[in-house]
Each structure stands twice: as C-alpha cells, then as structure tokens.
C-alpha cells in the first residue's frame, strides 16, 4: 500500500536519482514524515544505496525521520526576524507548548514546531508559518492566540 504510493512518486520523477531531494519532498508530503520502510523501498526502486538516501534525508533540514504532529508550525529564525525578536517568540512557543527550544512535537501530537532559517518574508518579521499560512509581525500575545485557535 505504502510502497505503491512511493512507486507513483518515483514514476512521476522518471526514476531519476538526481531528483532524490524532490522525491523525498513528495514522499514526506504523503506520509507527513519519512518512514524507514518507504526510504528502503525508495532506495531499491532508484537503485541507489540506502546510505545515500539516509544521508540526504538527514542532511537537509526539511526532512523529518520521525512522525510529526497534525499542525506544522515553522518559526522563522532568519536574521531580520532575529533582530526583531524571533528568539523571544520561539522561547514563548516552547514554554507554552512544553517542547524544547530547538523545536519538536507536542505530547498530544497536535503540533510540531520547527525552526527555519528564513522564509523570505523578512519585511514582516518575526514570522510564523502555521500550516503553510504566513503570519507576520508576531508578538508573544499574537502567537498564543494563534495556538489557542
């Protein structure tokens, strides 16, 4: 079942191992994270060593090898956001959801918080992306409201 989904993605990319990163992005979109079984299958399908797949999957920040929560929250830690206080926002989020400051899953698996380096919306700093939706000029209060919603 799961392998069929992977097969489909691989077919879409014409079995081109150079598209590995793109394929992994798509696989992650389907499963919300990168399960080991899918990656093993992917390696076989593309005829590349598992070690290469694993290396790429752990190298890039966008990939997660562990299951993630229902809602994915990115807190931008780019320079522009940093000078406008992104660190404080992150601390608040971490405290509020009782997760480590580097990000992680909440216990109820509702949220996964991840730090990102720049989302290219620097004029709006500090920025939080909640399930793909940009929220600019965040303050600790606005952040909390966002999570309560």
């Amino acid at each position, binding site marked *: 079942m799961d392998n069929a989904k992977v097969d489909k993605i691989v077919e879409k990319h014409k079995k081109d191992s150079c598209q590995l*990163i793109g394929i992994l992005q798509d696989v992650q979109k389907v499963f919300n994270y990168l399960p080991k079984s899918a990656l093993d299958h992917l390696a076989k399908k593309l005829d590349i060593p598992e070690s290469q797949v694993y290396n*790429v999957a752990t190298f890039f920040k966008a990939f997660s090898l562990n299951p993630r929560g229902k809602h994915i929250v990115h807190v931008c830690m780019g320079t522009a956001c940093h000078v406008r206080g992104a660190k404080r926002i992150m601390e608040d989020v971490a405290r509020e959801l009782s997760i480590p400051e580097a990000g992680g899953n909440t216990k109820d698996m509702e949220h996964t918080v991840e730090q990102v380096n720049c989302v290219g919306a620097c004029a709006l700093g500090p920025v939080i992306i909640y399930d793909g939706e940009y929220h600019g000029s965040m303050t600790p209060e606005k952040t909390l409201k966002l999570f309560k919603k």
Partner: protein
Amino acid sequence: MKRQRLNSQESLKKYREALVKARDPNQKVITVCGGTGCIAYGCKKVVEAFKTELEKQGLTDKVKLLVTGCHGFCERGPLVVIRPENLFYQRVKAEDVPEVIEKTVKNGELIERLQYEGKDKKKILKEEDIPFYAKQQRTIFGFNGYVDPKSIDDYIAIGGYSALPKALLEMTSEKIIDEVKKSGLRGRGGGGFLTGAKWEICAAQADQTKYIVCNADEGDPGAYMDRSVLEGNPHSIIEGMLICAKAIGASHAYVYVRNEYPLAVENLGIAIEQARELGLLGKKILGSDVDFDITVNRGGGAFVCGEETALLNSLMGKTGEPHQKPPYPAISGLFGKPTIINNVETWANVPLIISKGSAWFASIGTEKSKGTKIFSLVGKINNTGLVEVPMGMTLREIVYDIGGGILKDKKFKAIQTGGPSGGCLPEEKLDLMVDFDKLTEAGSMMGSGGMIVMDESTCMVDLARYFIDFLKGESCGKCTPCREGLKQMSGILNRICDGNGTEADIETLKDMSETVKDASICALGGTAPNPVLSTIKYFRNEYEAHIRDKKCLAHTCKKLIKFEINQKCTGCTRCVKTCPTTAISGKVKTVHNIDQGKCIQCGVCVDRCPFEAIDVD
C-alpha cells in the same frame, strides 16, 4: 488555449504586435501585489474582493485586475497600484475594495487614508514619487509591477523575449560572450566573478555536453530578492539562460529552487510550460539550431547549497557537500561536465544587456561594479523591502533616503551586508559606496544582497553569536576547520554572552577566524568568521564590556541583565499574571517586586507593562 509554436523571428514579432494591439494602453488596470509579503498581509482576500466587486459592478471587461509579483515595498503591503495613472494605495484591506472601485476606479477620486504619507505629512499620489521608489533604478525589478507572472503574454507584450531572437539568430556565440564581458556584469550571487569571463572559459571547453544551472537556493536569512524575481518575473530568467545556452553551446539547464519558496516553484513551472508551448523551449528554438530545455529541482533546506559546488552535488541527488576549487564548475561541474552556474539576479540581467547593449549597462554603476543590484533592506528600518539601486550608491542614501531611517527614530548602530557571512559596518562607514570591492575592503561583502539594519538595541556580540550559531548549524560538516572551528567559536561567543568570557578569548577568536577562513573547503567556511572579525574590529568595546564589566550595552544578553520594577508601577497585576515563573509578586495597586532568583529574563513582563514600569539593567 493551444498556442501556435513560434518558429522564426518574424513569428515572434507578429505575436507581440498582435498582443500589443489587443491591449488598450489607457485601460484601467488594478495591480495588486501578490508577492509573499503581501500574501502574508492578506492580499489574497483583497484580490477576491476585487473580483467579486468588479463582477457585481459589471466592470470585468472594462477594468483589468492584475496580480503581480512583489513590488518591493513590503512594509506597506498589501499594495495596490492603479494604472495607467500609477495611483498608489498601501495597506489595502478587503473592506476598502468597494470604496476603491466606486471612488477611484469609476470616478477618479482619491481615498486619502490609503495613500502614502511622506515625512512632511503630505500625501503622495503616484507610485514613482514615493521616496522609497524615487531614488531606485528598477531595471530588473520594475517589470514585476507590470506582468502577471503566470502569463507569458504579459512578458512578451512589454518587450520580453526581444533579446532572444537577437542572440539566437543575429549574434555569434563569441559576440554574445564579448557583449556580456564588455558590460562588466559580475555574478550577483556573492562571488562577484565576471560573468562574461566565466562563460568564455566554459565555451572554450572541448566537451560537447555542457550544462547551465540557475542558483535559486537563496539561503541567506534576511534576503529574498531572488525569490521575488523568480516569483514575479520567471521568464526573464528563462530568457537569460537561453542566451547563455547559445553562447556556450549547452542544451539543458537546471534551476535549483528552495522548497521554502512554493510560489516560485509554481510560477517557474508555469512559465516553463508556457515557453515550451510557444516553442521558446524545445528543439530548434525560433528556427535556430539551439535546442534547450529546463528542469526544476527543489532544494531541501541547506544554506550550504547556495555554494556552487555544493549545489551541483545536491543536483546529482547527493548531499550538499562542496569540494575544493579548482576544478571550477566552468571546467568540470555537473556530472563532470563544464557547467555555468549563475544566480537568479545575474540571469535576469542578461536579456537586458543583450537588448539594450553592453554600453548602456556599463554606464550604470562604479568602475569595477556595473549595473544595478537588488538589496533586501530589512531589520530595524522604516521601509523594509526590496530596493534596486545602481552600484555605487552610499549606504546612507539606501538607509535614510530609501529606507526612511531607523524604526522609531532610534539611533543607527550597524548595518550587516552580505548575509550571515558578511560583516557589520558601523555608522562611520555609512558613506561607503556600495560595490563589490569597497564592501570587501571594509571587511564585509556584497553577498547576495541582504542588508540588515540594526539600532542601538542590538547587541553586537549577541549578533556575532547568532551568525556563528547559524553557520555552525548550516555547515555541511565535511571539513575540520568549519565543523570544529565554528563549534568552538560558538562556544567562546556563548561564553562571552553569558558573562564568562576571558581576556584571551578575543585573541583566540581572531586566531581561529583566520584559520577557518583560509583552511575551509568552500565559501561558507571561508567567509563564516566575517561577522566575528568585523564586530571585533568595529565594536571591540562591546566585547570588552561583556568580558571585563560583565555588562551588555544593548541589554539583550540574558545572563547579564536584570529586570526591576520602578515607581511608575500602578499595581495593575498584568505582569504578575503573565510571568511564567511566578517571579513577580505584589498586591493590587502597590508597586510590584521581581524575585531575581526566580526571574528567567524572558521579558514577557516588559511587553505586557503599559506604563514602562520595568527597567532593564
């Protein structure tokens, strides 16, 4: 609609003429900025509102609604410009839409509250008169306000793809390279290498297979101009690469885009599809002997992939590990073949050089840095956004004239150029002319064009620590100096910020910086110590204050500050409720007190207090 393939210069010309003819220059056009910044401000709702309102009023045929790429003035989004008068409205909300249509579009009346207000409280009517735009020279970026990125017709109608037939059919490859060389265009990605010279080396390689790569992995935090060009005008990139394809004899290109830029990926994909439909990509383009196609590759979120050799590695489905140059990619790059890799902005400049001529391009800028450069002006500044200025403008002009000065009129402290590996320049360097060499001389760099303005509330040691921490996490970990060196530097800087620094630390940092710079494989490590070196050079007093006096002059380093409640406290108890560690106590309507043992210096109370009753020391 299935479009006809354009297979000659003539057919492209006809196609353009037909498009221009069909368009009334006096037609009312409502331009809504659809860049990511404005999307975050809710421009999608505004667009929807315009659509329904236009339909309701039955104006769909008379008034054109154009959703464009980023206009640059992100601070004031969502932006609406009404053409042909170029009336500028800022911070437009969905509720304002009926009024805009009723008053401005139909009757030509102005709505004052949506207009831009200058420093002298005077309302400014037209887009081009706004100081933010007035001083800019928007040769690349200007198109963004006029084209729908999802429509190739818009681009052709304003003269896009006019350099292409010239290059493909009228010029030899030597002529193209010569033209690019004469223009003095230098790589906009940060290296500043002469683009024409790079092409010449690549063209001279005997290998038959060559590749072209567009570097759109804009990993610099605080910079987003490549994103905006790619989102707003993807065809200019395609045209630039096509011209290079003819010049060096390549037939395939890859665009490596960050996955964090979904809109750029989408728009680029549409643009490529449309170009294929018109036969501007594919076999025998415009009847010439050039075959060319483009593949889009998505990145995975790694700053190091902005480095060209790392990017090429990543394009081959591996991790983004750079390797030592030489061999340069122009000689041995993707799959070991000669490869031209240029940044988005560089590609966007190429069609302009071909169509307007190298002399025109070389007339802009300074002696060794030609043309314009887009900067992303962000941080503690009034007019955040993207600005395109000719090379050689001073930092002061950019910060004060275009940027409108520092937020809340605080004191300017430093400007950081060139992304995380650039340097911080102090106030006395504000009159520095911005070009590749001058910035490098001053201990910073051009980089890809990030400009982050900082005011007195930014601690420079903390900032250096932030950058080193960032780069430590972004290092690929391949070579020792970068992996271990940055780790140790980060350790030292963290120690200083925590008030545990020693006198020897500054010298150790300087020693290490030199080694990391020289011995690292790639430019990430090679420039990583810049923030440290430049802050030590210009703000040594702050380091010394942290180390000797255990004081953070900007009151940001947590371990070195203390919160205290002063007599302004009215006893409203707001801070008591928000304090996460119950460090604040006090009865209603009496002055509160902070238990220093419990306080974690989170600063929430300062945010909550409406009376400025909490002092930071």
